[in-house]
């Protein structure tokens, strides 16, 4: 099988700063502040997967895959200051083998290993995996798993206290960016009847070689060692799923209690902190109802607010020549929380047949009750007092659609 993917992200931010002296109506500051970030990730994969049923109890799966990846990232300030301009290429060759062993009809084990040679680090990474399912009865099964996963194209959190943190992607180079890995432990159980599933799964993921980028600790020069930070973390949680599978009314509801914490020696005074995507609670429910030629659907999401780093206050250092340096101090990393996120989406579709054509007229309303969900907070310290504003996700958005199937 051949596969190719391309990801790109182009970020541009322009801020005009104009300060005038009211008394004389003269311009004191007139600056155009710009930030430009371009990130392109391309990969091309050739893979070869096989399955061999060795006997009634063993099925062997094995394969090879070769990926060629190219990542470009450019970060420019004010048109003239290039902070990062990185162009990377890497190839990795992976092979895997796993045995799906069913010693009893009620018990299934999948044990395997994957080895990946990565040419940028010139190392081979071995990733063992093991999972099992055990059916206690026709309706109840237990399941569990362990696995190690390596990631060569890494998501780097780009911390920005004033403009909202974003992320970008870079290839691990075994220097600034290490090959990240996660060790997964999963255990769970499911209860399934003819029409319903109840599933519960607890997980723990130990995360190593996470990367973060921040300009907060730079000095007058661009020193990459002061811009990239390396750390570890973990994610753990428990997920509950209740699903109705059959009938005119179908739907599911999930609740996840989760936590993601990171520890970077160079950040947050060395203390652990919540990851940007940490959400303590998330409840999501999707409902669908069919009535003659009508299809109605509703989706509701309620989630805890995500963490962010908040400027904590100002301070002044009085110098001995009588001058004063004024600074903004930053609070605990990701120590504050945005408001909770919730949203209701509704849709109705009418299915109509004209000759041999199926026509689907739809009306959907995203964010039905127009919740002002906050994406991030931004701070403008060029104003006195500073202006604090919220950048929000989409407001109420109606959408009309018509689809013709033939």
């Amino acid at each position: 099988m051949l596969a190719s993917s391309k990801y790109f992200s182009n970020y541009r931010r322009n801020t005009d700063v104009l300060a005038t002296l009211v008394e004389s109506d003269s311009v004191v500051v007139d600056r155009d502040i710009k930030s430009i970030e371009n990130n392109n990730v391309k990969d091309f994969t050739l893979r070869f997967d096989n399955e061999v049923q060795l006997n009634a109890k063993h099925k062997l799966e094995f394969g090879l895959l070769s990926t060629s990846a190219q990542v470009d990232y450019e970060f420019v300030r004010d048109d003239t200051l290039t902070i990062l301009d990185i162009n990377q290429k890497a190839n990795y060759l992976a092979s895997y083998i796993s045995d799906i062993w069913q010693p009893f009809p009620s018990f299934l084990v999948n044990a395997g290993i994957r080895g990946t040679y990565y040419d940028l680090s010139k190392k081979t990474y071995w990733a063992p995996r093991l999972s099992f399912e055990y059916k206690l009865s026709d309706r109840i099964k237990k399941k569990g798993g362990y696995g190690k996963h390596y990631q060569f194209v890494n998501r780097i959190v780009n911390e920005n206290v004033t403009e909202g943190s974003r992320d970008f992607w870079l290839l691990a180079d075994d220097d600034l960016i290490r090959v990240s890995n996660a060790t997964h432990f999963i255990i769970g159980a499911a209860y399934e009847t003819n029409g319903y599933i109840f599933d519960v799964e607890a997980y723990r993921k130990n995360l190593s070689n996470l990367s973060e980028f921040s300009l907060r600790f730079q000095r007058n020069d661009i020193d990459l060692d002061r811009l990239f930070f390396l750390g570890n973390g973990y994610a753990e949680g428990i997920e509950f799923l209740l699903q109705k599978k059959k009938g005119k009314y179908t739907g599911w509801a999930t609740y996840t209690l989760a936590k993601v914490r990171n520890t970077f020696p160079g950040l947050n005074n060395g203390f652990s902190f919540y990851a940007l995507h940490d959400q303590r609670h998330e409840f999501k429910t999707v409902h669908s109802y069919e009535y003659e030629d009508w299809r109605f659907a509703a989706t509701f999401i309620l989630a805890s607010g995500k963490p962010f780093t908040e400027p904590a206050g100002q301070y002044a250092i009085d110098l001995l020549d009588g001058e004063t340096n004024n600074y903004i101090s930053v609070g605990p990393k990701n120590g504050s929380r945005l408001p909770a996120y919730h949203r209701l989406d509704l849709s109705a579709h009418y299915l109509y047949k004209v000759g041999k054509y199926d026509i689907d007229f739809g009306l959907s309303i995203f964010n039905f009750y127009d919740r002002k969900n906050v994406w991030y907070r931004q701070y403008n310290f060029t104003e006195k007092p500073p202006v604090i504003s919220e950048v929000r996700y989409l407001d109420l958005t109606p959408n009309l659609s018509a689809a013709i199937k033939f």
Partner: protein
Amino acid sequence: MTKNTIYLAFCSLLLISCEEENLNNIAANQFVVEAFLYAGEPVNDIKVKSIYGLSEEEDLSIPIDDAQLTLTKNNRQYPLVSSGADGYYHYPGNDLLVETNDIFTLEVVHNGITAKAQTTVPTPTIGLNLSQDTIKVPQLPFSAGRDSIASVIGSFMRNSRIDATWQNPNNDLYFMVVEAQSALNDPIFPGQVLESLSRFKFVSEPTDDTSLTFLGGSLVSFGAYEVKVYHINREYAALYENRTQDSRDLNQPPSNVENALGVFSAFNSQDESFVLVRDTN
């Protein structure tokens, strides 16, 4: 659902709900330390204060008088005491000497946070020399008219220039202080109000040069003045190199104080003096 499965879910919930919240009490309760030691001088220029709100347009920091401060030198501790309600601390004894190459550690304990900083007393300024040690203020020829007075004043201002020079083979940083040695109660020009100048003190910006100039003509009282040129450390110079903060990144200002904001630095100096006298000729 089996008993085992129910037990598993309960344990996971318990595990998550008991986890710690944000442990970074340091960033949540930040305070500012401004601590300066001068070789050969008593320890009394150490200040602790709070940060203040983002929306404030003026410095509303609150002096912190209830912190526990300790200076350590050669493994001996010297506890400091509050000097009053202005956030300053001093060492009350006379057994603490600040000498060249001494390594001092300052520990500040406040609100459960222990901040630490270290500095080394630099070598003194070497080779300080003043271009003149006496500035003579001419009598003003009041009877000769306005032009003559202006001419005499102009000549005096030009001749009152004092160049302070010193050796600086390593391009280190220095700053100069000019301070009256006695009370300023003998005004050059009659009628001048000296009350506000009774503690006259001029402090220059740091320089990596080998000289600074001071105009004696800018003084307003006869008397003796002391010129001190301080040799300074990198942690203090860094405050001048990073006076502004990029408002987009809030890049962390320089600080050698661990677990708090601010600076702890030491200075060493050499001093010379000059006098401002009446020209009786």
